[in-house]
């Protein structure tokens, strides 16, 4: 390919977010344009992608602390109540020799959310500063955040199943606690944040600074 690669935007074309039809948009219309094939509203880039993603990332980070500090469930067995946070659950599993489970929970509940927030902040800062640094790798990082986010839900599902199974009156009961609510919020907010980020911004900025 000769010279700078040509983007759809530079050619006056917008890609429909829903049906991926490439639409030629006359310079005069702009706002309110609709896809001729599926009727979706057309945008050159996801609207206000950086602002939205920042807002969701900050909200998720705020929820991350209580999600890890507050107990996610309480086990009451023969009158004794014991509360577990995510980390105390992991150490419990480690002490009882169930290290594969401890690894699953640690990766899904502690490592993945931090990794996701870290990658999103890296992308937001680098795009905000108009960085040309390694666009291919940054796009790959974005695809990773999109793919792994859902696995953080494992702990929420474990609590649900424990609550549903262990309800034996005075013998043993398990209750979900506030930490689980915050943790659920972290998962949902980071998923929404990944969805609102537009990876094409990574490439736009590296094109602009080249000229």
């Amino acid at each position, binding site marked *: *390919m000769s010279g700078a*690669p*040509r*983007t*759809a*935007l*530079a050619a006056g*074309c917008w*890609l429909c977010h*829903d*049906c*991926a*039809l*490439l639409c030629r948009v006359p310079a005069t219309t702009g706002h309110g344009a609709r896809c001729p*094939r*599926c*009727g*979706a509203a057309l945008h050159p880039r996801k609207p206000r992608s950086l602002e939205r993603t920042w807002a969701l990332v900050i909200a998720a980070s705020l929820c991350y602390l209580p999600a890890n500090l507050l107990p996610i469930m309480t086990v009451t067995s023969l009158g004794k109540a014991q509360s577990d946070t995510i980390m105390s659950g992991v150490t419990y*599993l480690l002490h009882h020799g*169930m290290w594969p*489970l401890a690894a*699953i929970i640690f990766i899904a509940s502690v490592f993945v959310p931090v990794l996701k927030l870290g990658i999103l902040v890296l992308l937001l800062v680098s795009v905000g500063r108009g960085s040309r640094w390694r*666009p*291919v790798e940054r*796009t*790959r990082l974005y*695809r990773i955040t999109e793919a792994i986010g*859902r*696995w953080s*839900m*494992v702990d929420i*599902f*474990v*609590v*649900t*199943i*424990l*609550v*549903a*199974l*262990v*309800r*034996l*009156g005075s*013998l*043993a009961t398990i*209750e*979900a606690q506030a930490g*689980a*609510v915050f943790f*659920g*919020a972290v998962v*949902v907010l980071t*998923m929404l944040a990944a*969805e609102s980020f537009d*990876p*094409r911004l*990574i*490439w*736009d900025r590296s094109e602009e600074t080249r000229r």
Partner: protein
Amino acid sequence: MLAACHDCDLLFHLGTVAEGATARCGRCNGVLRRRRRNGIERTLALSLAAAVLFAVANAFPFLSFDMKGQKTETTLLTGVFDLFEQGVPEIAALVLVTAVLAPMLQIALLLYVLLPVHAGRVPWQMARAFRLLRRVQPWSMMEVFLVGILVAVTKLMGMAEVVAGLSLWAFALLIVVLAGAMSSLDPHEVWERLEVPR
């Protein structure tokens, strides 16, 4: 045909993509188009199987738990109901959406769109239905739920006897079938079939 990369907006002249082949962006390696052999028919067949498995998975208990003679059984919905009763409706709603409603909607929308498309007709409000399908997909988390089941069962193993129910097997199969349905679906092909009669 002119096309653009979804991830980096590079413009392409995309020729016909052969069945079974994948076209990727030369700049960022994003998938431009992936075509499967008989994509629509294959997806339709797997979606029908998924509908049957979904009904089985939700109708029967998936685990039973036996501790000192006291036995509890749980289906997907009773777990959600217990969370709601315990005063954590937020979690109950999240689990209801991700483990029950989103997969159900996903299967229903697949059938709603693909049955008429297969017969050469355009379903009513097809664009809206197909758009909704794409929005719902990330929230359908049955495979994560299955891992959750395995973790919970292993945790409880020392305490009591946990028995897998019929629906656990249906559930495991459902995940494979639905993943197959989604991966053999080429959205471009569906949109192109829609485009012709209009």
